[in-house]
């Protein structure tokens, strides 16, 4: 898979996995039907994936190579790919097939891995998580299917040299400096960089760019591993966050209210 360039630092083939997601900041739930109100909610590139793309573009600008954006989704996900091209991606691949519908993280990762294998890559970037599902599973699972290592929560790339990469991985209590051989899959956090805005030239390029389309046959997928049928998990029920209702409203003047509160807390031995 990797490009061969004896003697020097190689020019990297980079794939960035991006997902088109509804802007969850704008989502509301219909209190009567308990369903999502998705109407009018804009679709965006998953914010973490923009940081992944930015980092890929910076690597290419430093040492050459190629940045391919890859998405699995319905035909309209093409918009996300064109937006990525307007930021500077070289190529775009849309993995789309009705057989992919209903994929959970297992099936999504399997499908993405089959496509990556087909395309070939030295470094694969994913976002830390997608803001619709917040699972953070697709990156590591894809790496497992590819049989390559992964490093999660990258907040800085220290060096890429001679088939080797050194990064900082964000942890609970600080960070680790981690090295790996290539190929490797990295999932990134927002501290990594500041994503650029599309340039005018990029926007023109995005209009004209040809989007490569791949379906289940192009990636030689095993049908039993695709879409709903290939997904081990099922969504059983979706509901509005429930609220407990054991509240006691403390009445009176501020003086009386605060006295009442302190009395209550003393009663339950919390003061």
């Amino acid at each position, binding site marked *: 898979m990797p490009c061969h360039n004896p003697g020097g630092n190689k020019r990297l083939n980079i794939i960035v996995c991006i997902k088109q997601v509804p802007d969850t900041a704008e989502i509301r739930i219909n209190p009567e039907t308990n369903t999502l109100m998705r109407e009018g909610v804009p679709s965006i590139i998953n914010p973490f994936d923009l940081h992944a793309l930015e980092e890929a573009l910076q690597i290419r600008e430093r040492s050459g190579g190629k940045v391919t954006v890859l998405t699995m989704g319905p035909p309209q996900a093409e918009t996300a790919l064109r937006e990525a091209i307007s930021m500077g991606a070289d190529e775009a691949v849309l993995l789309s097939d009705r057989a992919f519908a209903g994929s959970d993280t297992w099936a999504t990762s399997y499908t993405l891995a089959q496509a990556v*294998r087909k395309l*070939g890559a030295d470094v694969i970037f994913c976002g830390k998580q997608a803001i619709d599902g917040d699972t953070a*599973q697709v990156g*590591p699972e894809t790496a497992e299917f590819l049989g390559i290592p992964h490093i999660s929560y990258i907040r800085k790339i220290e060096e890429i040299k001679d088939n080797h990469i050194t990064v900082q991985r964000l942890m609970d209590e600080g960070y680790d400096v981690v090295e790996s051989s290539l190929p*490797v899959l990295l999932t990134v956090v927002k501290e990594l960089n500041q994503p650029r805005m599309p340039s005018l030239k990029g926007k023109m390029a995005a209009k004209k760019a040809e989007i490569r389309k791949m379906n289940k046959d192009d990636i030689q997928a095993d049908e039993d591993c695709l879409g709903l049928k290939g997904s081990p998990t099922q969504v059983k029920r*979706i509901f509005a966050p429930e609220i407990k209702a054991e509240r006691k409203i403390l009445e009176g003047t501020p003086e009386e209210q605060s006295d009442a509160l302190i009395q209550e807390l003393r009663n339950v031995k919390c003061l």
Partner: protein
Amino acid sequence: MSIVVRVDKCSGCETCLASCPFDAIVMKEGKAFINEYCNYCKTCISVCPEGAIIETEEISNFKSQISNLLDYKDVLIFAEQREGKAAPVALELLGAGRRLADELGVKLLAVLPGADEPEAKELVKWGADRVYLCSDARLRKFNDDSYADLLTLIINEQRPSIVLAGATPVGRSFIPRVAARLRTGLTADCTSLEIDGETGNLLQIRPAFGGNIMATILCPDYRPQMATVRPRVMKRGEYNETRTGEIVSIQLDEIRTRTNVLETVKEVSEVSVNLHEAEYIIAGGRGAGGDKGFRLLSELAQALGGVVGASRAAVDEGWISYSHQVGQTGKTVNPKIYIACGISGAVQHLVGMQSSDIIIAINTNPEAPIFNVATYGIVGDLFEIVPLLTKKIKELKGI
């Protein structure tokens, strides 16, 4: 099923090319590549001198596994350790796991890598029936490969029906690899776990879409049913000095690590630690209005011996740093008392503090949703109420 070349191992010797009856192997940039003509005859696997061609067999295995659902019984938790001590989330998993195991009438197993026998005994006292202890010092530090290999090994041998791990940086990083390998489902970041009375399946409940909705996820046809659990939402089990259990020592011959930690740098913010350990959290939102409001809150915090928290709105306004933020994109806390001052109670805030023992809401707007989760509500101005509370508590404590 598929046959793949591991490019990191392939030396480019071309032995496999000649062996393939279907002409399905080509050289690409000096490495072998298997194209769509592959008939899965596996000849190449046997001839490769580097062992670089592998069959991703986990995919071909899964059908046989499905027919054996009933072979999978126990509940297993992954006990994460820091410097040899079980992390708090491990004890919470034991609490949740114990409850599920009792309901199903099965055993509670724990896997503990990189720690020693006394710590394994602690896990027994916290509720485990059997602990698989791998005290190999090489497992002291987290590594995706070695942790995934160890856990996969134990799952394949013990066949638990349910596997739980913490939704921590460690759990969220390597558990997906295990699920991918075992060809089973994984539900991230669960906030509640229950057993379906009819089928005995695990109901995995988690927030989605930025906390706007909750979803119940099932994994009915594959085993084990795997979930990561958000730290600090499950209650620890009962600690029992006299509880007995088995400790099984595991030896690994080879430890595979393709990534290598060169250095670990600690950058613990004191606030984070304090928020997680605090018994009293006094949190301010947009209603706190600015620095003056937050000063009042920290005076109350001081009087109570607590810590100041905040809503995202207050953090976004720049009144207080992000490390204080509670909620979906901030911290999950469960203090004894959480006092929400000038916080409206958006779902994204609620998911981070809902499991506090007592919630007190102080808000001028009687319709604010925060009152729906409050144990005690005060409809009033925080600028009046908070100083009064501080004064009265100080008097009470004689300070």
